[in-house]
């Protein structure tokens, strides 16, 4: 696929097209020290051919947004198990807008009760993947979101 691109594949195939390599930042926000799940997701995305930047634990939304901008990722995937998802995702969305990084998609995972879904979506989350999701569902969610957004 990459070779086709290096061979000078034209960019005019339309806006609804994913970049050749999808880049994802997998992050943990706030006081949540459990990153086994985040690492498993990172591995799943790697095996699906994506480039995954892993940032480590205890990050602030501001740190994550700055890293996502420098790494030019298509998606920020955040796993949260701490219960403080509503304020943290709201802050993440605010930082993204403030930095003019509205092109970066946000996918939420972890332990998130359904009654909080509207608040997350309102705060700028693009998709919420429930914890029982199989690996292929995580992959297609990201691929579909990036394809719909288009190449940047």
């Amino acid at each position: 696929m990459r070779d086709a691109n290096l061979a000078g594949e034209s960019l005019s195939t339309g806006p609804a097209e994913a970049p050749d390599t999808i880049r994802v930042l997998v992050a943990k926000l706030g006081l949540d020290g459990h990153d086994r799940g985040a690492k498993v997701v990172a591995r799943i995305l790697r095996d699906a051919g994506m480039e995954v930047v892993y940032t480590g634990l205890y990050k602030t939304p501001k740190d994550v947004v700055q890293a996502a901008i420098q790494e030019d990722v298509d998606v920020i995937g955040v796993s949260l198990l701490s219960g403080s998802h509503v304020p943290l995702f709201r802050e993440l969305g605010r930082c993204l807008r403030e930095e003019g990084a509205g092109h970066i998609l946000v996918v939420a995972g972890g332990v998130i009760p359904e009654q909080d879904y509207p608040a997350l979506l309102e705060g700028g989350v693009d998709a919420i993947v429930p914890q029982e999701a199989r690996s292929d569902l995580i992959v297609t969610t990201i691929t579909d979101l990036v394809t719909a957004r288009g190449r940047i």
Partner: protein
Amino acid sequence: MTVVTHSTRPRRAAYVPSADLVKDVLAGRAIAIARMISRAEEGYPEAAAALAELYRHGGKAHVIGITGVPGAGKSTLVSALIKAYAAEGRKVGVIAVDPSSPYSGGAILGDRVRMSETAAAGGAFVRSMATRGHLGGLTRATLQAVDVLDAAGYDPVIIETVGVGQDEVEVVTAAHTVVVLSAPGLGDDIQAIKAGILEIADIHAVSKCDKPEAAATVSALRGMLALGGERPGSRRAPPVLPVSAVSGERIGELKDAIGAHWAHLNESGERVERQRAMGRTRILGTARHLFQQKFQEAPETLERQIRAVAERRMDPAVAARALLGWEETP
């Protein structure tokens, strides 16, 4: 049934032409810098003119290569250097390379884990890149990424290679100053006299000097260098510096040694020679890439040669010459 809940406002974004990014890169805007690096990585033909313009604006930054075995402590060392340079008010650009999976093409880029705090505090620009099949410790677009950071005003620009084995020495033609980081406790002193990576150092650093084994590694390296160990074309014996990035011990000395090497390159005129070597490698590397690309555009011709070679009707050397049009196809 497991379902993903989506926002009702699907996100859309437009492609910004590379020519429009140049001004923002030169002004140091992070989003534009990052995007430009991605376009170099993807090899978009549309970005070629913009990258050429940025190349003309570069050439100011001191490019430092840091290489060493996996786990030697390269990322931790880079993090400590970012902090040391930030204390002098210098903004560091970092390109950190990690390997791509040979099977899926995906990658886990984990160098940031150890850099995020110092990077945020020190105003550094850290970019992780995957090798994408390129061998030698760097990626095809590493040097273009360096150009972008250089043009954006980052100085120094540090290239952290993948964890290398014994002969991934490509960084030597990518950086002005090469720091080879050795970790204590990995093998006996015969490792120190082997050919390969140890020969490319302008500066040897030994990590984890808080550990007792570090002294043995330092003395093995010094012993090797006592027999003559400067890089061919270099008129300066490389120092061996024990450092501990965790405690911050002697990081200042390493930074000063890097600075002294840069001063030496500038005063002795060696910088010009290194820049020529860098230019040569880049031209030939790009030419090789363009060749490959050309043959992939015409897969039938290549396919014919592959069949002939596989069936032993032709040998690979003749097939390669035929592909280049240097030999009549029998």
